[in-house]
């Protein structure tokens, strides 16, 4: 998939993952890069940007292995933003799917 296109979806992924539970950076980055082919280092600038915009807060929590980790928690504003992005995403993908469906229909008619 086109790189440009992927990045917009990245924001949505981060917000949806954090809405499920608070995560530390590495965990979040792995959940995304397991599914989407992207340089992992790009996700941290995005996290910082979203935090500046007030979509989430961070806190430190001790870990059983090694130093404390920085956790991200979605704010109320972040939840509202996630809802908005999810709605937009569904509207967009169902539009694309409809077009794909129509194209498939025509293909099968012509063949």
């Amino acid at each position, binding site marked *: 998939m086109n790189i440009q296109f992927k*990045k917009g979806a990245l924001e949505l992924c981060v917000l949806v993952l954090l809405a499920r539970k608070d995560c*530390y*950076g590495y965990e979040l980055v792995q959940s995304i890069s397991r599914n989407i082919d992207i*340089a992992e280092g790009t996700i941290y600038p995005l996290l910082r940007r979203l935090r500046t915009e007030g979509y989430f807060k961070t806190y430190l929590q001790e870990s059983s292995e090694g*130093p404390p*980790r*920085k956790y991200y928690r979605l704010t109320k504003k972040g939840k509202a933003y996630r809802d908005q992005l999810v709605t937009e995403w569904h509207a967009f993908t169902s539009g694309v799917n409809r077009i794909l469906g129509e194209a498939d229909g025509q293909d099968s008619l012509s063949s």
Partner: protein
Amino acid sequence: MDKTAYLRELEDALGGLPEADIQDILSDYREHFSVGLSEGRTMTEIAANLGDPAMIGRLYRADHLVQQADSSNRVRAIIPAVFAVIGLGLFNIFFVAVPSLLIAFLVLGLWMLTGLVIITGIGCFAGTLAYLFFPSWFVIGGASGVSVFFLGLFLSLGFLSLGALLAIGVWFLTRFLIRQAVRYLKFNISLFTVRREP
């Protein structure tokens, strides 16, 4: 590339940011390395998956400068922000540099026009005063002194008030264009990604 080299390259690329921000950013990557290592990945593997530290650094800098342009009252703050975003990729020469140049010319042109109108007003006013005190300098066939004086006064007031109106209008237009530019730069940054190292 190992952890130390990676962090050093990233730190170099972050030059110019406030020290607290640099340390905060570096600590995220340090944590990433330490968790990755504890999960059994190698340093080289982790660094390769993170992507080019120089590019990531540029991305943070662009973010920071655009944020500054957004919160700053100084109109000039937009200039380093535009350059930082252009520096993110070739693609942006067309999508950032060209429109920025056009807008800069438009704004500069309008300010020059405003300046010209105000200078003309001042010139008319100076001429009118000169006519009042040294009428012999002027050769004006037929017209009475009083009407020339009032014509001069009328012209200078006209140009000066037009200049003032233009200045206010162009000021608001400049602010508006900068707000739009900041929004566009933010959008542009949000599209930017770094490829994985092969």
